[in-house]
């Protein structure tokens, strides 16, 4: 309301929820774009069912989009919701548990009739029976208003119904004092090709915007800009960032990028993104299966490209044998595993960190390879870039672990310049020189890369064990043992080039919190909050899983007589791994396998329990 003073906010979490056909993803992405233009730091997370169109008004058919933004550094899409925008009874029922007490719930009550309420188990209408008295509930017949408005202007009822999400976009835009013109521009970009649809959506948007001015009780806010470092920014999702990181690495190394991949949730967006970029010479090959995805990438690497494949857990299982082949042939290869809840098909659209041990050990024979993990949507860019760099410079497959949560999630991304990214120099062999496939650099133990077509370097490699240096097929027992050790040592020596592990917070604290991968946002925020409360904790978030940074032991040593807790979204795989690498420590565990990220609140509570 224009006459009411707008409240300033630090940060706020909003979630849009409705049926999977209600346009929640569109509403969420348009709103987050508008918020980012306003100069806010933000993080988002779409939460949707794996069915394309689930049955209407059912709990499992609920689609959601969460956005966390504000003027301070935003680490994650947030745990608890400050404003829930809800379009049907099922979505209210499914999401109430994520809403903070006292939060605002804005409801389109058009579908809150007896039949639909009973269908999801409400015996009376929660909007009116007082059961939501802990919340600030505002309910309006949004869909009904859209239909009335549209039929007045001779639009059909169906298009009007569809535009209810745009009414909400109008309301939210006013509530957060976003520029009306800017959002209309976004709508024009979205619907401009169909002028009639655009006009209707514009009308509904403006009506929703105006609705806030004329309606009492709707809270309004003003935004202060986030103090982001100067530079150029864009929004990016984790999967897009992964694709771009690979492309950037290929360009930096002067190589062609080849992605062999098979569609699988939640990794498919990487294949789809790379398929768009023929203009930069990217070759994507939609393979007939996961195995063809990785083996074609190995073939492309043999032929001198940066070979990569993208997948999720079940696909990584199928790629195991070929990973061994890449280890044996010592070719560069990037395997991106966007982890999802397993085992087997599990919960395809839900996130988990359950593939760590598979990535580390899931192959026949002694087959070590590099494993690194991205920590946030934007970080996927740098993690993919690094995965490619180490793969190319150390002639080894690298598994990059991301997860559905950061893969689908988006974040504000400060645009780097390619010139500022680290050099990538693959160890090419020199044409017309004496070439032995397994002759190694004495420092790094890396072999040279001779590419078909290069003069005077014809040679053969493959999955059979080969002699040291010369690369002849061999079953000699001592040679095999030597080669096994060389392959392992080659990967271990990458640690010499890794930046030291960062220790954040209080190095003399009572508790060391360890985490890895996509949980960074929540864990770091929990640690920050505890530090603000003067609780002495420290945080080591791991990016390099194998090999571990060389100072890892030293950091653990500092906390030998204190407490160490490893927080991860599995049953304790990183903790198990640390126990095998570092004996004599007690690694406590905080684990969750619900397909949902950690909440900051649960982490804080757990970490506090270790402090006397």
């Amino acid at each position: 309301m224009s006459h009411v003073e707008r409240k300033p906010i630090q940060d706020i979490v909003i979630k849009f929820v409705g049926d999977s056909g209600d346009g929640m993803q569109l509403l969420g992405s348009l709103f987050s774009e508008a918020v980012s233009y306003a100069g806010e730091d933000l993080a988002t997370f779409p939460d949707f069912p794996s069915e394309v169109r689930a049955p209407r008004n059912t709990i499992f058919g609920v689609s959601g989009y969460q956005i966390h933004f504000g003027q301070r550094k935003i680490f994650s899409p947030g745990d608890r919701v400050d404003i829930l925008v809800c379009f049907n009874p099922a979505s209210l029922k499914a999401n109430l548990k994520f809403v903070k007490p006292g939060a605002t719930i804005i409801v389109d009550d058009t579908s809150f009739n007896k039949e639909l309420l009973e269908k999801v188990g409400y015996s009376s209408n929660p909007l009116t029976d007082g059961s939501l008295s802990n919340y600030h509930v505002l309910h309006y017949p949004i869909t009904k208003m859209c239909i009335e408005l549209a039929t007045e202007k001779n639009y059909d009822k169906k298009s009007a119904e569809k535009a209810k999400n745009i009414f909400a976009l109008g309301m939210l835009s006013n509530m957060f004092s976003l520029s009306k013109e800017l959002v209309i521009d976004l709508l024009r970009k979205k619907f401009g090709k169909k002028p009639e649809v655009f006009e209707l959506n514009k009308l509904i948007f403006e009506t929703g915007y105006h609705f806030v001015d004329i309606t009492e009780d709707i809270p309004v806010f003003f935004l202060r800009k986030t103090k982001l470092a100067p530079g150029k920014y864009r929004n990016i999702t984790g999967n897009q960032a992964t694709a771009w990181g690979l492309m950037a690495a290929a360009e930096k190394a002067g190589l062609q990028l080849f992605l062999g991949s098979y569609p699988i949730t939640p990794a498919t967006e990487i294949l789809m993104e790379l398929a768009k970029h023929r203009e930069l010479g990217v070759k994507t090959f939609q393979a007939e299966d996961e195995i063809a995805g990785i083996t074609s990438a190995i073939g492309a690497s043999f032929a001198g490209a940066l070979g990569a494949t993208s997948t999720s857990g079940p696909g990584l299982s199928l790629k195991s044998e070929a990973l061994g082949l890449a280890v044996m042939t010592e070719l560069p290869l990037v395997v991106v595993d966007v982890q999802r809840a397993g085992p087997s098909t599990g919960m395809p659209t839900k996130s988990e960190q359950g593939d760590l041990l598979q990535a580390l050990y899931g192959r026949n024979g002694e087959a070590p390879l590099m494993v690194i993990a991205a920590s946030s949507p934007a970080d996927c860019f740098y993690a993919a870039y690094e995965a490619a760099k180490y793969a190319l410079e150390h002639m080894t497959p690298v598994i990059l672990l991301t997860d559905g949560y950061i893969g689908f999630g988006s974040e504000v991304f400060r645009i780097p310049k390619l010139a500022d990214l680290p050099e990538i120099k693959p160890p090419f062999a020199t044409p017309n020189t004496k070439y032995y496939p397994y002759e190694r650099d004495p420092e790094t133990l890396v072999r040279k890369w001779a590419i078909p077509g290069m003069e005077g370097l014809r040679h053969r490699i493959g999955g059979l064990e080969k002699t040291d240096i010369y690369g002849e097929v061999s079953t000699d027992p001592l040679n095999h043992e030597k080669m096994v050790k060389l392959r392992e040592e080659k990967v271990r020596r990458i640690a010499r080039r890794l930046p030291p592990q960062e220790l954040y917070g209080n190095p003399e604290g009572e508790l060391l919190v360890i985490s890895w991968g996509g949980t960074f946002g929540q864990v770091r925020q929990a640690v920050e909050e505890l530090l603000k409360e003067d609780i002495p904790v420290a945080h080591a978030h791991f990016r390099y899983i194998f090999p571990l940074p060389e100072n890892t032991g030293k950091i653990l040593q500092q906390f030998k007589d204190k407490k160490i807790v490893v927080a991860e979204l599995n049953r304790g795989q990183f903790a198990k791994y640390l126990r095998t690498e570092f004996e004599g420590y007690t690694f406590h565990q905080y684990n969750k396998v619900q397909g949902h990220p950690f909440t900051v609140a649960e982490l804080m509570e757990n970490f506090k329990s270790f402090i006397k």
Partner: protein
Amino acid sequence: MKGYIRNTIEKSPVPLTKEDFASDQMVRWCPGCGNYAILNSVLRVFPEIGYKKEKYVVVSGIGCSSRFPYYVNTYGFHGIHGRAFPIASGVKIANPGLSVWIATGDGDSMAIGGNHFIHIIRRNLDVNILLFNNQIYGLTKGQYSPTSPLGAMTKTSPYGTIEHPFNPGELVIGASGTFFARGIDIMPNLLTDILFEAAKHDGTSVVEILQNCVIFNDGAYEHLTNKEVRDDRLCIVEHGKPIVFGKNKNKGIILKGNKLEVVTIGENSITMDDILVHDQTMPDPGIHVLLAKMTNPVILGVIRAVPAPTYDDLMEDQIQQVKQSSPIKCMDDLLNSGDTWEVTEEA
């Protein structure tokens, strides 16, 4: 010279010989194995094709046939079971300027690699597949394969197989194959000619090579190769020529209704004019399938060679087209494209 090899792969500036491709490795196939004849044909045809010797890549899967890369001095990749096709696909897509050859067997290509086999053919990727068909698993010592005839007694079918075999030609054509030829280890000159034709073909060329396994399936093709019957049981087709065979070249094949029939020229008023003229370029695969499926005689030579766009050409064309029309020329362009915003010092 037997025709035109197109210029997309760099030619050798100097004439090459068999010795340029001879490997220094000890060949470890059983004495008397049909593979030796195949190896010899390949060593003869590579210099004849005339690409620069570094441009050849031989890729294989697992099995006796798949030791092939070690015995030819080219760039070679010995893959894993069944996966030679996608490995080779990656090689060819990444660098279309390479001449890619795949050595595979009946088990490698049609059992464990069956999925990849049909899809590489469907895509018409420009590679050459040498399918060594001995109707048995040799390297694992004598189990039945997807081409073992129904009832074959092997170590895993001691009472006879109860599986219907694939006919590789039928499978290739069924997968939209553009090139299928059949050779046999006892006729190395014919095989060399076929391999040359395979190299000439733009697209996936599959050459089935009937090959005797002396240890585990000796005599599998004896009913065809026995000198007494050979000329009557094997029939070599040539494009544009009537399909005739037999010791006296007086037997021929005619199309009667929707079936192929063997006839004798001069009998029942059959003349040379009645004999089916082989057309390997017919897009309709009907007669090619009938030829591939004949068992008496068994058809050898190039059965099908139909021009069609290749995957690798389409890929390169698409890249060129998109490059021309796109304003994005490098990664920095892409990173800064679309919706971005500036944050300045005072913000």
